[in-house]
Protein backbone atom coordinates (compact mmCIF):
# COMPACT_ATOMS: atom_id res chain seq x y z
CA UNK A 1 0.00 0.00 0.00
CA UNK A 2 1.24 3.45 -0.76
CA UNK A 3 1.95 5.44 2.36
CA UNK A 4 1.14 8.73 0.71
CA UNK A 5 -0.71 9.40 -2.52
CA UNK A 6 -0.88 13.03 -3.52
CA UNK A 7 -3.54 13.37 -6.18
CA UNK A 8 -3.33 16.76 -7.76
CA UNK A 9 -3.05 18.90 -4.67
CA UNK A 10 -2.70 22.51 -5.62
CA UNK A 11 -2.76 25.82 -3.79
CA UNK A 12 -3.39 29.26 -5.13
CA UNK A 13 -3.36 32.24 -2.80
CA UNK A 14 -5.14 35.48 -3.58
CA UNK A 15 -2.83 38.30 -2.65
CA UNK A 16 -2.84 42.04 -2.90
CA UNK A 17 -4.88 44.62 -1.04
CA UNK A 18 -8.18 43.57 -2.57
CA UNK A 19 -7.12 39.90 -2.71
CA UNK A 20 -7.50 39.94 -6.46
CA UNK A 21 -4.12 38.66 -7.66
CA UNK A 22 -3.67 34.92 -7.69
CA UNK A 23 -0.36 33.57 -6.58
CA UNK A 24 0.29 29.93 -7.31
CA UNK A 25 2.12 28.42 -4.39
CA UNK A 26 1.75 24.87 -5.70
CA UNK A 27 0.88 23.55 -9.13
CA UNK A 28 -1.24 20.39 -9.20
CA UNK A 29 1.05 17.83 -7.62
CA UNK A 30 0.97 14.12 -8.26
CA UNK A 31 3.27 12.05 -6.12
CA UNK A 32 3.32 8.64 -4.48
CA UNK A 33 5.41 7.55 -1.53
CA UNK A 34 5.69 3.84 -0.81
CA UNK A 35 5.56 2.32 2.62
CA UNK A 36 8.85 1.69 4.33
CA UNK A 37 10.92 4.10 2.29
CA UNK A 38 12.70 7.29 3.21
CA UNK A 39 11.50 9.87 0.76
CA UNK A 40 13.19 13.20 0.28
CA UNK A 41 11.24 16.24 -0.83
CA UNK A 42 13.86 18.59 -2.19
CA UNK A 43 13.74 22.14 -3.34
CA UNK A 44 15.06 25.60 -2.71
CA UNK A 45 13.43 27.86 -0.16
CA UNK A 46 9.97 28.97 -1.19
CA UNK A 47 9.55 26.09 -3.61
CA UNK A 48 6.31 24.86 -2.07
CA UNK A 49 7.62 22.10 0.19
CA UNK A 50 6.15 23.49 3.36
CA UNK A 51 2.90 24.33 1.61
CA UNK A 52 2.57 20.70 0.53
CA UNK A 53 3.25 19.47 4.02
CA UNK A 54 0.80 21.88 5.57
CA UNK A 55 -1.89 20.74 3.18
CA UNK A 56 -1.25 17.12 4.05
CA UNK A 57 -1.52 18.00 7.74
CA UNK A 58 -4.79 19.78 7.21
CA UNK A 59 -3.39 23.14 8.32
CA UNK A 60 -4.01 24.67 4.93
CA UNK A 61 -6.85 23.77 2.58
CA UNK A 62 -5.99 22.95 -1.03
CA UNK A 63 -7.57 24.91 -3.83
CA UNK A 64 -8.05 21.61 -5.63
CA UNK A 65 -6.97 18.01 -5.47
CA UNK A 66 -7.01 15.35 -2.79
CA UNK A 67 -4.59 13.01 -1.13
CA UNK A 68 -4.60 9.70 0.65
CA UNK A 69 -2.52 8.93 3.72
CA UNK A 70 -2.07 5.27 4.67
CA UNK A 71 -5.03 4.44 2.52
CA UNK A 72 -7.37 6.94 4.18
CA UNK A 73 -8.65 10.27 3.00
CA UNK A 74 -6.14 12.86 4.15
CA UNK A 75 -8.78 14.82 6.05
CA UNK A 76 -9.73 11.84 8.20
CA UNK A 77 -8.86 12.84 11.78
CA UNK A 78 -8.34 9.23 12.86
CA UNK A 79 -5.48 8.68 10.47
CA UNK A 80 -3.55 11.36 12.36
CA UNK A 81 -3.03 8.94 15.19
CA UNK A 82 -0.71 7.08 12.87
CA UNK A 83 1.33 9.98 11.61
CA UNK A 84 3.89 12.23 13.22
CA UNK A 85 4.81 15.74 12.14
CA UNK A 86 7.83 17.88 12.86
CA UNK A 87 7.28 21.38 11.51
CA UNK A 88 10.06 23.68 10.40
CA UNK A 89 11.48 25.60 13.36
CA UNK A 90 8.93 24.25 15.75
CA UNK A 91 7.50 26.30 18.56
CA UNK A 92 6.04 24.73 21.58
CA UNK A 93 4.20 25.92 24.63
CA UNK A 94 7.17 27.45 26.32
CA UNK A 95 5.65 27.40 29.77
CA UNK A 96 5.65 23.60 29.76
CA UNK A 97 8.54 21.24 30.45
CA UNK A 98 9.46 18.66 27.84
CA UNK A 99 7.84 15.95 29.94
CA UNK A 100 4.62 17.92 30.26
CA UNK A 101 4.60 18.73 26.58
CA UNK A 102 5.02 15.13 25.57
CA UNK A 103 2.43 14.06 28.10
CA UNK A 104 -0.05 16.55 26.62
CA UNK A 105 0.70 15.48 23.06
CA UNK A 106 0.49 11.86 24.11
CA UNK A 107 -2.94 12.50 25.53
CA UNK A 108 -4.04 14.18 22.32
CA UNK A 109 -2.66 11.35 20.20
CA UNK A 110 -4.48 8.80 22.25
CA UNK A 111 -1.51 7.11 23.89
CA UNK A 112 -3.00 5.22 26.84
CA UNK A 113 -2.12 6.63 30.23
CA UNK A 114 -0.34 3.56 31.45
CA UNK A 115 2.06 3.58 28.48
CA UNK A 116 2.65 7.28 28.32
CA UNK A 117 5.23 7.71 31.02
CA UNK A 118 7.32 4.89 29.71
CA UNK A 119 7.09 6.04 26.11
CA UNK A 120 8.07 9.56 27.07
CA UNK A 121 11.23 8.39 28.81
CA UNK A 122 12.10 6.13 25.92
CA UNK A 123 11.63 8.77 23.34
CA UNK A 124 13.52 11.47 25.24
CA UNK A 125 16.42 9.11 25.61
CA UNK A 126 16.33 8.31 21.97
CA UNK A 127 16.59 11.92 20.90
CA UNK A 128 19.30 12.61 23.42
CA UNK A 129 17.36 14.87 25.77
CA UNK A 130 18.34 13.82 29.22
CA UNK A 131 18.59 15.75 32.48
CA UNK A 132 15.93 18.17 31.46
CA UNK A 133 13.32 17.29 34.01
CA UNK A 134 11.55 20.37 35.27
CA UNK A 135 13.16 22.68 32.72
CA UNK A 136 10.63 24.79 30.87
CA UNK A 137 10.86 24.75 27.11
CA UNK A 138 11.47 28.48 27.03
CA UNK A 139 14.94 27.72 28.31
CA UNK A 140 15.81 25.21 25.59
CA UNK A 141 18.43 25.92 22.95
CA UNK A 142 17.54 25.62 19.28
CA UNK A 143 19.10 22.19 19.07
CA UNK A 144 17.24 20.99 22.11
CA UNK A 145 13.96 22.27 20.72
CA UNK A 146 14.60 20.38 17.51
CA UNK A 147 15.16 17.20 19.46
CA UNK A 148 11.99 17.80 21.43
CA UNK A 149 10.22 18.26 18.14
CA UNK A 150 11.44 14.93 16.88
CA UNK A 151 10.43 13.35 20.16
CA UNK A 152 6.84 14.55 19.86
CA UNK A 153 6.72 13.33 16.26
CA UNK A 154 7.58 9.75 17.14
CA UNK A 155 6.11 9.55 20.63
CA UNK A 156 2.98 7.70 19.65
CA UNK A 157 4.83 5.24 17.44
CA UNK A 158 3.35 6.44 14.15
CA UNK A 159 3.67 4.46 10.93
CA UNK A 160 4.46 7.51 8.89
CA UNK A 161 6.54 10.48 9.90
CA UNK A 162 6.75 13.89 8.23
CA UNK A 163 9.80 16.01 8.91
CA UNK A 164 10.11 19.55 7.61
CA UNK A 165 13.80 20.52 7.55
CA UNK A 166 14.71 18.22 10.41
CA UNK A 167 18.40 19.13 10.37
CA UNK A 168 17.96 22.85 10.81
CA UNK A 169 19.52 24.28 13.93
CA UNK A 170 21.63 21.23 14.63
CA UNK A 171 25.40 21.00 14.84
CA UNK A 172 27.18 18.30 12.81
CA UNK A 173 26.93 15.82 15.67
CA UNK A 174 23.25 16.48 16.01
CA UNK A 175 22.71 16.07 12.31
CA UNK A 176 24.48 12.76 12.41
CA UNK A 177 22.23 11.64 15.24
CA UNK A 178 19.11 12.64 13.32
CA UNK A 179 20.31 10.79 10.26
CA UNK A 180 20.89 7.71 12.37
CA UNK A 181 17.48 8.06 13.89
CA UNK A 182 15.85 8.28 10.49
CA UNK A 183 17.67 5.13 9.44
CA UNK A 184 16.44 3.43 12.57
CA UNK A 185 12.89 4.48 11.84
CA UNK A 186 13.18 2.89 8.45
CA UNK A 187 14.52 -0.28 10.07
CA UNK A 188 11.43 -0.30 12.24
CA UNK A 189 9.34 -0.39 9.12
CA UNK A 190 8.20 3.22 9.28
CA UNK A 191 7.92 5.52 6.32
CA UNK A 192 9.76 8.81 6.50
CA UNK A 193 8.87 11.78 4.34
CA UNK A 194 11.14 14.72 4.85
CA UNK A 195 11.74 17.97 3.10
CA UNK A 196 15.10 19.64 2.96
CA UNK A 197 17.31 21.81 0.85
CA UNK A 198 20.49 20.08 2.01
CA UNK A 199 21.30 17.61 -0.74
CA UNK A 200 24.05 15.68 0.97
CA UNK A 201 21.63 14.56 3.65
CA UNK A 202 19.13 13.48 1.03
CA UNK A 203 21.76 11.65 -0.96
CA UNK A 204 22.90 9.76 2.11
CA UNK A 205 19.50 8.89 3.47
CA UNK A 206 16.82 8.71 0.87
CA UNK A 207 15.55 5.84 -1.17
CA UNK A 208 13.71 8.18 -3.48
CA UNK A 209 13.52 11.91 -3.95
CA UNK A 210 11.30 14.45 -5.61
CA UNK A 211 12.49 17.85 -6.67
CA UNK A 212 10.19 20.81 -6.53
CA UNK A 213 10.82 24.36 -7.67
CA UNK A 214 8.51 27.35 -7.85
CA UNK A 215 5.55 25.22 -6.92
CA UNK A 216 6.19 22.67 -9.59
CA UNK A 217 7.43 19.09 -9.51
CA UNK A 218 10.61 18.93 -11.57
CA UNK A 219 11.73 15.39 -11.13
CA UNK A 220 11.18 12.18 -9.19
CA UNK A 221 13.31 9.07 -8.94
CA UNK A 222 15.41 6.61 -6.97
CA UNK A 223 18.58 8.19 -5.67
CA UNK A 224 20.60 5.26 -6.97
CA UNK A 225 19.29 5.82 -10.46
CA UNK A 226 19.73 9.56 -10.35
CA UNK A 227 23.33 9.24 -9.20
CA UNK A 228 24.13 6.29 -11.40
CA UNK A 229 27.61 5.81 -12.67
CA UNK A 230 28.30 7.75 -15.73
CA UNK A 231 29.03 4.96 -18.16
CA UNK A 232 32.61 4.66 -19.19
CA UNK A 233 34.25 7.37 -17.18
CA UNK A 234 36.49 7.30 -14.18
CA UNK A 235 37.78 10.03 -11.94
CA UNK A 236 41.49 10.26 -11.07
CA UNK A 237 42.82 12.45 -8.28
CA UNK A 238 46.55 13.02 -7.71
CA UNK A 239 48.82 15.06 -5.50
CA UNK A 240 50.45 18.21 -6.81
CA UNK A 241 49.59 20.71 -9.46
CA UNK A 242 51.36 19.08 -12.35
CA UNK A 243 49.49 17.80 -15.30
CA UNK A 244 51.62 15.27 -17.30
CA UNK A 245 51.48 15.75 -21.03
CA UNK A 246 50.53 12.13 -21.49
CA UNK A 247 47.39 12.78 -19.45
CA UNK A 248 46.40 15.52 -21.74
CA UNK A 249 46.96 13.22 -24.62
CA UNK A 250 44.46 10.81 -23.15
CA UNK A 251 41.85 13.46 -23.46
CA UNK A 252 41.50 14.12 -19.76
CA UNK A 253 39.60 17.08 -18.38
CA UNK A 254 41.75 18.35 -15.55
CA UNK A 255 40.97 20.73 -12.70
CA UNK A 256 43.45 21.96 -10.17
CA UNK A 257 42.16 22.55 -6.68
CA UNK A 258 44.62 23.62 -4.04
CA UNK A 259 47.40 21.07 -4.21
CA UNK A 260 45.48 18.26 -5.90
CA UNK A 261 44.36 17.74 -9.44
CA UNK A 262 41.20 16.04 -10.47
CA UNK A 263 40.78 14.56 -13.90
CA UNK A 264 38.08 12.66 -15.75
CA UNK A 265 39.18 10.11 -18.26
CA UNK A 266 37.54 7.33 -20.25
CA UNK A 267 37.41 4.07 -18.35
CA UNK A 268 39.44 2.13 -20.87
CA UNK A 269 42.29 4.56 -20.37
CA UNK A 270 42.59 4.16 -16.66
CA UNK A 271 45.64 1.86 -16.82
CA UNK A 272 47.41 4.26 -19.12
CA UNK A 273 46.62 7.08 -16.71
CA UNK A 274 48.06 5.24 -13.76
CA UNK A 275 51.20 4.50 -15.77
CA UNK A 276 51.53 8.15 -16.71
CA UNK A 277 51.44 9.23 -13.10
CA UNK A 278 53.88 6.55 -11.99
CA UNK A 279 56.37 7.55 -14.67
CA UNK A 280 56.33 11.11 -13.37
CA UNK A 281 56.44 9.84 -9.78
CA UNK A 282 53.24 11.65 -9.04
CA UNK A 283 51.34 10.34 -6.08
CA UNK A 284 47.90 8.89 -6.90
CA UNK A 285 45.26 9.78 -4.36
CA UNK A 286 42.11 8.18 -5.73
CA UNK A 287 40.65 6.41 -8.70
CA UNK A 288 36.89 6.01 -8.65
CA UNK A 289 34.06 5.40 -11.10
CA UNK A 290 32.44 8.68 -11.87
CA UNK A 291 28.96 9.21 -10.43
CA UNK A 292 26.80 12.19 -11.04
CA UNK A 293 25.88 13.82 -7.82
CA UNK A 294 22.44 14.54 -6.71
CA UNK A 295 23.51 18.13 -6.75
CA UNK A 296 24.12 18.03 -10.46
CA UNK A 297 20.75 16.46 -11.08
CA UNK A 298 19.17 19.01 -8.78
CA UNK A 299 20.73 21.99 -10.47
CA UNK A 300 19.85 20.63 -13.88
CA UNK A 301 16.21 20.19 -12.91
CA UNK A 302 16.06 23.67 -11.50
CA UNK A 303 17.34 25.20 -14.64
CA UNK A 304 15.16 23.46 -17.17
CA UNK A 305 11.74 24.84 -17.89
CA UNK A 306 8.58 22.99 -17.05
CA UNK A 307 7.84 21.77 -20.59
CA UNK A 308 11.20 20.09 -20.78
CA UNK A 309 10.37 18.36 -17.56
CA UNK A 310 7.12 16.82 -18.71
CA UNK A 311 8.63 13.36 -18.62
CA UNK A 312 9.86 13.97 -15.11
CA UNK A 313 6.40 13.88 -13.62
CA UNK A 314 6.23 10.11 -13.61
CA UNK A 315 8.14 7.78 -11.40
CA UNK A 316 11.40 6.62 -12.84
CA UNK A 317 14.86 7.70 -13.69
CA UNK A 318 15.41 10.59 -16.03
Amino acid sequence: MAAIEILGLEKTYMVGFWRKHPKRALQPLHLTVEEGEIFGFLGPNGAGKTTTLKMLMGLVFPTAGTARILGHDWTDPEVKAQIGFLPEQPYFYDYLTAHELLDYYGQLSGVPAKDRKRRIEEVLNRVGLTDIKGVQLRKFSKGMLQRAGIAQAILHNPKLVFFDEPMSGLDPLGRREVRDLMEQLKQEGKTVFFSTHILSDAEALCDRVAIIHKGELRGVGRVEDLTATVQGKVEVIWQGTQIPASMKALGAECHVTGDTVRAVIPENQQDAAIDALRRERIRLIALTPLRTSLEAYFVEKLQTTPTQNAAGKTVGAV
Partner: protein
Amino acid sequence: MSPRIVHIARNTFREAVRDRVLYNLIAFALLLSGAAIFVGQISIDIERLVVVNLGLTAVSLFGVVIAIFIGIGLVSKEIEKRTLYTVLSRPVRRWEFIVGKFFGLAGTLVVNTFFMAIGVFGALLYVTHKFSRPDALILVALYFIILEFLIICSLALLFSSFSSPLLSAVFAFSLFVIGSFADDLRGFAGMAHGVTRWVATGAAYLVPNFSALNVISAVAHQQPMSSQLILQNTLYALFYTAMALSGAVLIFERRNLK
Protein backbone atom coordinates in the same frame (compact mmCIF):
# COMPACT_ATOMS: atom_id res chain seq x y z
CA MET B 1 -17.36 14.55 25.77
CA SER B 2 -14.23 13.68 23.92
CA PRO B 3 -11.25 13.24 26.23
CA ARG B 4 -9.24 15.51 23.97
CA ILE B 5 -11.48 18.42 24.90
CA VAL B 6 -10.75 17.76 28.55
CA HIS B 7 -7.02 17.63 27.90
CA ILE B 8 -7.08 20.87 25.94
CA ALA B 9 -9.15 22.53 28.66
CA ARG B 10 -6.73 21.40 31.35
CA ASN B 11 -3.79 22.66 29.37
CA THR B 12 -5.48 26.03 28.83
CA PHE B 13 -6.11 26.31 32.54
CA ARG B 14 -2.49 25.41 33.24
CA GLU B 15 -1.33 28.06 30.80
CA ALA B 16 -3.43 30.72 32.52
CA VAL B 17 -2.11 29.77 35.92
CA ARG B 18 1.50 29.77 34.74
CA ASP B 19 0.80 33.13 33.15
CA ARG B 20 0.35 34.28 36.71
CA VAL B 21 -3.27 35.21 36.13
CA LEU B 22 -4.28 34.15 39.59
CA TYR B 23 -2.11 36.87 41.03
CA ASN B 24 -5.02 39.20 40.32
CA LEU B 25 -6.52 37.70 43.43
CA ILE B 26 -3.91 39.51 45.47
CA ALA B 27 -4.95 42.84 44.05
CA PHE B 28 -8.56 41.94 44.64
CA ALA B 29 -7.92 40.90 48.22
CA LEU B 30 -6.11 44.13 48.93
CA LEU B 31 -8.88 46.19 47.42
CA LEU B 32 -11.60 44.46 49.32
CA SER B 33 -9.81 44.40 52.66
CA GLY B 34 -9.00 48.06 52.33
CA ALA B 35 -12.61 48.86 51.56
CA ALA B 36 -13.93 46.73 54.41
CA ILE B 37 -11.67 48.33 56.95
CA PHE B 38 -12.31 51.82 55.63
CA VAL B 39 -16.02 51.31 55.57
CA GLY B 40 -15.96 49.98 59.11
CA GLN B 41 -15.94 53.59 60.23
CA ILE B 42 -19.45 54.28 58.97
CA SER B 43 -22.89 53.10 60.11
CA ILE B 44 -23.99 49.50 59.74
CA ASP B 45 -26.53 49.75 56.89
CA ILE B 46 -24.22 51.47 54.46
CA GLU B 47 -21.33 49.16 55.32
CA ARG B 48 -23.08 46.17 54.02
CA LEU B 49 -24.24 48.02 50.93
CA VAL B 50 -20.74 49.19 50.10
CA VAL B 51 -19.09 45.83 50.66
CA VAL B 52 -21.62 43.97 48.57
CA ASN B 53 -21.69 46.55 45.78
CA LEU B 54 -17.95 47.05 45.67
CA GLY B 55 -17.12 43.39 46.12
CA LEU B 56 -19.44 42.12 43.44
CA THR B 57 -18.56 44.90 41.01
CA ALA B 58 -14.87 44.09 41.50
CA VAL B 59 -15.51 40.38 40.93
CA SER B 60 -17.34 41.24 37.75
CA LEU B 61 -14.83 43.76 36.39
CA PHE B 62 -11.68 41.83 37.29
CA GLY B 63 -13.19 38.74 35.72
CA VAL B 64 -14.24 40.50 32.53
CA VAL B 65 -10.77 41.95 32.13
CA ILE B 66 -9.16 38.55 32.65
CA ALA B 67 -11.64 36.87 30.31
CA ILE B 68 -10.92 39.38 27.59
CA PHE B 69 -7.16 39.50 28.02
CA ILE B 70 -6.72 35.77 27.98
CA GLY B 71 -9.58 35.06 25.60
CA ILE B 72 -8.38 37.25 22.77
CA GLY B 73 -5.13 35.35 22.50
CA LEU B 74 -6.50 31.87 22.84
CA VAL B 75 -6.57 31.16 19.13
CA SER B 76 -4.63 34.00 17.56
CA LYS B 77 -1.59 33.44 19.75
CA GLU B 78 -1.44 29.79 18.82
CA ILE B 79 -1.63 30.65 15.15
CA GLU B 80 0.94 33.41 15.51
CA LYS B 81 3.34 31.26 17.45
CA ARG B 82 2.63 28.17 15.32
CA THR B 83 2.13 26.03 18.37
CA LEU B 84 -1.04 24.85 16.63
CA TYR B 85 0.85 22.88 14.01
CA THR B 86 1.86 20.03 16.26
CA VAL B 87 -1.56 20.00 17.90
CA LEU B 88 -3.64 19.84 14.72
CA SER B 89 -1.38 17.20 13.19
CA ARG B 90 -2.78 14.92 15.88
CA PRO B 91 -6.28 13.42 15.89
CA VAL B 92 -7.65 16.68 17.32
CA ARG B 93 -10.62 18.11 15.49
CA ARG B 94 -10.61 21.86 15.05
CA TRP B 95 -13.92 22.23 16.85
CA GLU B 96 -12.57 20.24 19.80
CA PHE B 97 -9.77 22.74 20.02
CA ILE B 98 -12.19 25.65 20.27
CA VAL B 99 -14.46 23.96 22.79
CA GLY B 100 -11.51 22.81 24.86
CA LYS B 101 -10.06 26.31 24.98
CA PHE B 102 -13.43 27.67 26.03
CA PHE B 103 -13.79 25.29 28.93
CA GLY B 104 -10.23 25.96 30.01
CA LEU B 105 -10.82 29.71 30.14
CA ALA B 106 -14.23 29.40 31.73
CA GLY B 107 -12.77 27.03 34.28
CA THR B 108 -10.05 29.52 35.12
CA LEU B 109 -12.65 32.19 35.73
CA VAL B 110 -14.83 29.94 37.85
CA VAL B 111 -11.88 29.08 40.05
CA ASN B 112 -10.94 32.73 40.25
CA THR B 113 -14.49 33.71 41.15
CA PHE B 114 -14.63 31.03 43.80
CA PHE B 115 -11.67 32.54 45.62
CA MET B 116 -13.06 36.01 45.19
CA ALA B 117 -16.38 34.88 46.60
CA ILE B 118 -14.64 33.76 49.73
CA GLY B 119 -13.10 37.20 49.91
CA VAL B 120 -16.44 38.94 49.55
CA PHE B 121 -18.11 36.85 52.21
CA GLY B 122 -15.09 37.34 54.42
CA ALA B 123 -15.28 41.09 54.08
CA LEU B 124 -19.02 40.97 54.65
CA LEU B 125 -18.58 38.99 57.81
CA TYR B 126 -16.00 41.47 58.98
CA VAL B 127 -18.32 44.44 58.66
CA THR B 128 -21.59 42.89 59.72
CA HIS B 129 -20.24 40.33 62.18
CA LYS B 130 -22.81 37.76 61.19
CA PHE B 131 -24.59 36.53 58.10
CA SER B 132 -28.29 36.92 57.57
CA ARG B 133 -30.53 34.95 55.23
CA PRO B 134 -30.69 37.53 52.44
CA ASP B 135 -26.92 37.19 52.10
CA ALA B 136 -27.59 33.98 50.22
CA LEU B 137 -28.69 36.23 47.38
CA ILE B 138 -25.04 37.13 46.94
CA LEU B 139 -24.59 33.60 45.68
CA VAL B 140 -27.22 34.28 43.05
CA ALA B 141 -25.39 37.42 42.00
CA LEU B 142 -22.15 35.46 41.78
CA TYR B 143 -23.88 32.80 39.73
CA PHE B 144 -25.12 35.44 37.32
CA ILE B 145 -21.63 36.92 37.14
CA ILE B 146 -20.32 33.51 36.14
CA LEU B 147 -22.99 33.36 33.44
CA GLU B 148 -21.70 36.73 32.23
CA PHE B 149 -18.20 35.29 32.13
CA LEU B 150 -19.33 32.37 30.00
CA ILE B 151 -20.73 34.80 27.46
CA ILE B 152 -17.66 37.03 27.48
CA CYS B 153 -15.32 34.05 27.13
CA SER B 154 -17.21 32.73 24.17
CA LEU B 155 -17.20 36.17 22.54
CA ALA B 156 -13.48 36.67 23.15
CA LEU B 157 -12.85 33.25 21.64
CA LEU B 158 -15.05 34.10 18.66
CA PHE B 159 -13.07 37.25 17.93
CA SER B 160 -9.79 35.49 18.56
CA SER B 161 -10.60 32.97 15.86
CA PHE B 162 -10.37 35.56 13.13
CA SER B 163 -9.00 38.81 14.45
CA SER B 164 -5.79 40.17 15.94
CA PRO B 165 -5.55 40.46 19.71
CA LEU B 166 -5.87 44.22 19.72
CA LEU B 167 -9.01 44.31 17.59
CA SER B 168 -10.48 41.40 19.49
CA ALA B 169 -9.96 43.27 22.75
CA VAL B 170 -11.69 46.33 21.33
CA PHE B 171 -14.66 44.34 20.02
CA ALA B 172 -15.04 42.28 23.17
CA PHE B 173 -14.82 45.29 25.45
CA SER B 174 -17.27 47.26 23.32
CA LEU B 175 -19.75 44.43 23.42
CA PHE B 176 -19.37 44.27 27.18
CA VAL B 177 -20.18 47.95 27.57
CA ILE B 178 -23.04 47.93 25.08
CA GLY B 179 -24.36 44.73 26.59
CA SER B 180 -24.47 46.37 29.99
CA PHE B 181 -26.86 48.92 28.54
CA ALA B 182 -28.78 46.40 26.47
CA ASP B 183 -32.09 47.35 28.09
CA ASP B 184 -31.61 50.96 27.12
CA LEU B 185 -30.56 49.96 23.64
CA ARG B 186 -33.84 48.15 23.21
CA GLY B 187 -35.56 51.25 24.54
CA PHE B 188 -33.80 53.41 21.96
CA ALA B 189 -34.74 50.93 19.25
CA GLY B 190 -38.35 51.13 20.34
CA MET B 191 -38.36 54.87 19.83
CA ALA B 192 -36.79 54.81 16.39
CA HIS B 193 -38.62 54.69 13.08
CA GLY B 194 -38.32 52.93 9.76
CA VAL B 195 -35.15 51.14 8.73
CA THR B 196 -33.22 52.46 11.72
CA ARG B 197 -35.73 50.80 13.96
CA TRP B 198 -35.26 47.41 12.39
CA VAL B 199 -31.48 47.67 12.42
CA ALA B 200 -31.42 48.94 16.00
CA THR B 201 -33.83 46.28 17.17
CA GLY B 202 -31.76 43.59 15.50
CA ALA B 203 -28.61 44.86 17.11
CA ALA B 204 -30.34 45.25 20.45
CA TYR B 205 -31.34 41.61 20.51
CA LEU B 206 -28.00 40.28 19.28
CA VAL B 207 -25.95 42.17 21.78
CA PRO B 208 -25.35 40.12 24.94
CA ASN B 209 -27.87 41.13 27.54
CA PHE B 210 -25.66 41.85 30.51
CA SER B 211 -28.14 44.27 32.04
CA ALA B 212 -30.42 41.35 32.88
CA LEU B 213 -27.53 39.47 34.43
CA ASN B 214 -26.37 42.44 36.46
CA VAL B 215 -28.28 42.01 39.68
CA ILE B 216 -25.66 43.56 41.95
CA SER B 217 -27.77 46.54 43.04
CA ALA B 218 -30.80 44.36 43.65
CA VAL B 219 -28.83 41.92 45.73
CA ALA B 220 -27.21 44.73 47.68
CA HIS B 221 -30.69 45.87 48.59
CA GLN B 222 -31.72 42.32 49.39
CA GLN B 223 -34.37 42.08 46.70
CA PRO B 224 -35.46 38.51 46.08
CA MET B 225 -35.20 36.95 42.65
CA SER B 226 -37.82 34.74 41.07
CA SER B 227 -36.60 31.26 40.23
CA GLN B 228 -38.26 31.60 36.81
CA LEU B 229 -36.01 34.53 36.09
CA ILE B 230 -32.95 32.62 37.22
CA LEU B 231 -33.87 29.74 34.95
CA GLN B 232 -34.54 31.97 31.95
CA ASN B 233 -31.30 33.84 32.41
CA THR B 234 -29.38 30.58 32.68
CA LEU B 235 -30.89 29.29 29.47
CA TYR B 236 -30.23 32.60 27.76
CA ALA B 237 -26.59 32.60 28.77
CA LEU B 238 -26.15 29.00 27.64
CA PHE B 239 -27.75 29.60 24.27
CA TYR B 240 -25.84 32.81 23.70
CA THR B 241 -22.58 31.08 24.55
CA ALA B 242 -23.46 28.23 22.21
CA MET B 243 -24.15 30.76 19.48
CA ALA B 244 -20.79 32.49 19.86
CA LEU B 245 -18.94 29.18 20.04
CA SER B 246 -20.71 27.88 16.94
CA GLY B 247 -19.58 31.01 15.16
CA ALA B 248 -16.03 30.47 16.36
CA VAL B 249 -16.07 26.88 15.16
CA LEU B 250 -17.44 27.84 11.75
CA ILE B 251 -14.74 30.44 11.27
CA PHE B 252 -11.89 28.36 12.61
CA GLU B 253 -12.86 25.33 10.53
CA ARG B 254 -12.16 27.21 7.36
CA ARG B 255 -9.08 29.10 8.36
CA ASN B 256 -5.87 28.54 6.45
CA LEU B 257 -3.06 28.68 8.98
CA LYS B 258 -0.07 30.64 7.88
